[in-house]
C-alpha cells in the first residue's frame, strides 16, 4: 500500500524538485533518499497527512545538504535556496499560483522583466536556463530578475481588487503568449540545451486555465497554443528548412493536441464573451481540422479575421486577412486592398505581396518582393527562408 503510494508520488516530487533546484541527476538522488527514508519511517510512524509535501520537504533538505557539501561550486541563487529552509508551503495553494503570476506580470515591470520573472518564479527555471532560452548572457537575465524583484519590493502579495483583475490577467496572457511565440519561432538548433519554451508556456497556461476555468480568453490562449504547437512535427523539413502551412504533411500533426485545443475553443466560444485569443484559436482550429490544405474553409477563416480586425486591429491581422481574402476572392482583389493600405510599410507586407504575386502568376514580381523582405527582416531564419522562396518561385512551373 505504501509502496504504490510512493510510486505514484515519485514523478510529482521529482518534478517539484527539478523545477525548484534544476539538475535532474542530483534531484533524482535526493528523491531516492527521501523514498528510502519514507520506506523506513512510514510503516513505523504511520503515513503523514500530506505524503507529497513530506517527500518534497525531505528530498529538498537532502538536496541542500548535497550543496553544502559541494561548497566550492555553490552558485549564488543556490546559496539563497539553502538559506531558506524549505517548508510544507513548497506545494503552493491554487490562489498563490495566480497571485504569483499576477505579481510577476505587474504593470510596473517592463515586458522582458515580466517574462524573465514569470519563468523564474512560477516556471521554476534557473537564471541560466532562461538565459540560454533567450540567447543572452546569464548576468543580463540575473539583473533583469533582481531589478524586477527590487521594483516589486513594496508590492503586496495578494490578489488585486476585482476591478483590476481583467487587465492584470490580460498582462499574464500576453507574457505567456510571448514565451510561447519565442519558443515556437526559434530556429531549431539555435541553442544547445534550450529549455522548451513552448512546453513551459503551455504548462503555465494550463495552470492559469485551471485557476480561471470560466475565463474565455485564458481558454482561448491555451487552445491557440495547443493548436499551433500541434503542427510542430511538420513545420521543418529534413534539411531544417521551414515548411509553409499549405505544404505540411498533415499526418504528422499531433491529433490529440488538435482534439484538445478544438474542444477547448468550441466550449469557450459557446459559453463566454468572444475575444482576440479565442478568434486566433478558432482560426488555428479551422486550419488544423482541414484534412488537406485545399479543404481549408477559407470563407470561415476570412470571417474570423474580419471579427478579429474589429476586436484587435493591427497590421499583422490585416496581412493575414489578405491571405485569406486571396483564397476566397482571388489574389487580384487582395492585391488591390494591399495597395490601398498605406500603413503597411513592413517587411511582412513584402512577404504577403510576394505570396499574392506568386498566386497571380507573376514569379518575377514575387521574387523581387521575397528578396526585399529578406533584406529587411531582423531574423536570420526568416532571411534564409525568404531567400529560398525567392529562388523557388523563379524555378517553379506555375501551379
Amino acid at each position, binding site marked *: 500500500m505504501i509502496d504504490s503510494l510512493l510510486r505514484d508520488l515519485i514523478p510529482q516530487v521529482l518534478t517539484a524538485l527539478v523545477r525548484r533546484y534544476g539538475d535532474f541527476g542530483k534531484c533524482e538522488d535526493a528523491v531516492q533518499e527521501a523514498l528510502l527514508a519514507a520506506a523506513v519511517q512510514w510503516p513505523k510512524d504511520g503515513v503523514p497527512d500530506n505524503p507529497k509535501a513530506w517527500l518534497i520537504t525531505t528530498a529538498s533538505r537532502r538536496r541542500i545538504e548535497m550543496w553544502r557539501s559541494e561548497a566550492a561550486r555553490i552558485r549564488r541563487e543556490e546559496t539563497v535556496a539553502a538559506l531558506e529552509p524549505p517548508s510544507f508551503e513548497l506545494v503552493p495553494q491554487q490562489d498563490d499560483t495566480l497571485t504569483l503570476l499576477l505579481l510577476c506580470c505587474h504593470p510596473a515591470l517592463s515586458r522582458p522583466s515580466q517574462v524573465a520573472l514569470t519563468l523564474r518564479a512560477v516556471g521554476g527555471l534557473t537564471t541560466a536556463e532562461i538565459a540560454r532560452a533567450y540567447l*543572452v548572457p546569464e548576468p543580463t537575465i540575473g539583473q533583469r530578475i533582481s531589478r524586477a524583484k527590487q521594483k516589486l519590493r513594496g508590492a503586496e502579495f495578494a490578489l488585486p481588487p476585482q476591478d483590476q483583475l481583467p487587465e492584470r490577467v490580460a498582462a499574464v496572457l500576453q507574457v505567456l503568449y510571448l514565451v510561447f511565440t519565442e519558443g515556437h519561432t526559434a530556429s531549431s538548433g539555435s541553442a544547445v540545451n534550450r529549455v522548451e519554451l513552448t512546453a513551459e508556456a503551455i504548462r503555465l497556461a494550463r495552470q492559469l486555465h485551471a485557476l480561471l476555468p470560466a475565463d474565455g480568453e485564458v481558454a482561448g490562449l491555451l487552445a491557440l497554443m495547443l493548436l499551433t504547437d500541434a503542427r510542430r512535427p511538420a513545420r521543418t523539413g529534413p534539411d531544417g528548412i521551414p515548411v*509553409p502551412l499549405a505544404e505540411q504533411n498533415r499526418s504528422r500533426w499531433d491529433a490529440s493536441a488538435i482534439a484538445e485545443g478544438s474542444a477547448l475553443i468550441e466550449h469557450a466560444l459557446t459559453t463566454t464573451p468572444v475575444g482576440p485569443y479565442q478568434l486566433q484559436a478558432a482560426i488555428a482550429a479551422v486550419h488544423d481540422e482541414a484534412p488537406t490544405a485545399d479543404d481549408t474553409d477559407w470563407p470561415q477563416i476570412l470571417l474570423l479575421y474580419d471579427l478579429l480586425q474589429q476586436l484587435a486591429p493591427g497590421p499583422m491581422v490585416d496581412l493575414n486577412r489578405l*491571405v*485569406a481574402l486571396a483564397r476566397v476572392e482571388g489574389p487580384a482583389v487582395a492585391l488591390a486592398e494591399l495597395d490601398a493600405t498605406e500603413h503597411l510599410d513592413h517587411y511582412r507586407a513584402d*512577404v504577403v505581396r510576394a505570396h499574392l504575386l506568386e498566386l497571380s502568376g507573376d514569379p518575377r514580381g514575387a521574387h523581387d518582393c521575397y528578396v526585399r523582405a529578406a533584406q529587411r527582416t531582423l531574423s536570420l531564419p*526568416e532571411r534564409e527562408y525568404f531567400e529560398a522562396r525567392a529562388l523557388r518561385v523563379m524555378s517553379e512551373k506555375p501551379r
Partner: protein
Amino acid sequence: MKYLVLIYGNPASRAAWAGMSDEQKAEGLRAYQRFHEELERTGERIVSERLAAPELTKQVHVRADGVSTTDGPFAEIKEQLAGFYLLECDSEARALEIAARIPEAPFATIEVRPVMGLTGDVDFEL
C-alpha cells in the same frame, strides 16, 4: 534585443584626445569606468572594446592570385572605427539612450545597429 553600437573617431576627435592633459585623459577613462559599472549593474553590456590606433590596421586582400595584406587604412578615410559595444536592451529607444551617453559621443559619430536574431515567424498562413 541585441544592438551593436559603433563609435567612429575622426581627425578632430583624435586631435582632441591627443591634446588633452594627462589628468583630462585619466578623467576621460574614469568616465568610461563609471559608465561601464552602470551597464554592468543593469546587465545591458554584453561586451565592449576600444580599438587600437587606426595606423595599426591591416587590410587583408583575397584575390584570384592569392592572399596579401597591406598596412593601414586609406588616408582619405576620415572616420575610423574607434570602439564598439554589444548591448542587450529591452528596446531600440533604450539602446539609443545608452549610445548617447558614451563619453566621447560629443566628438564622435555613433551608430546603433540591430543584430539579427535567431527567432522568426516563417510559418504564417501562406
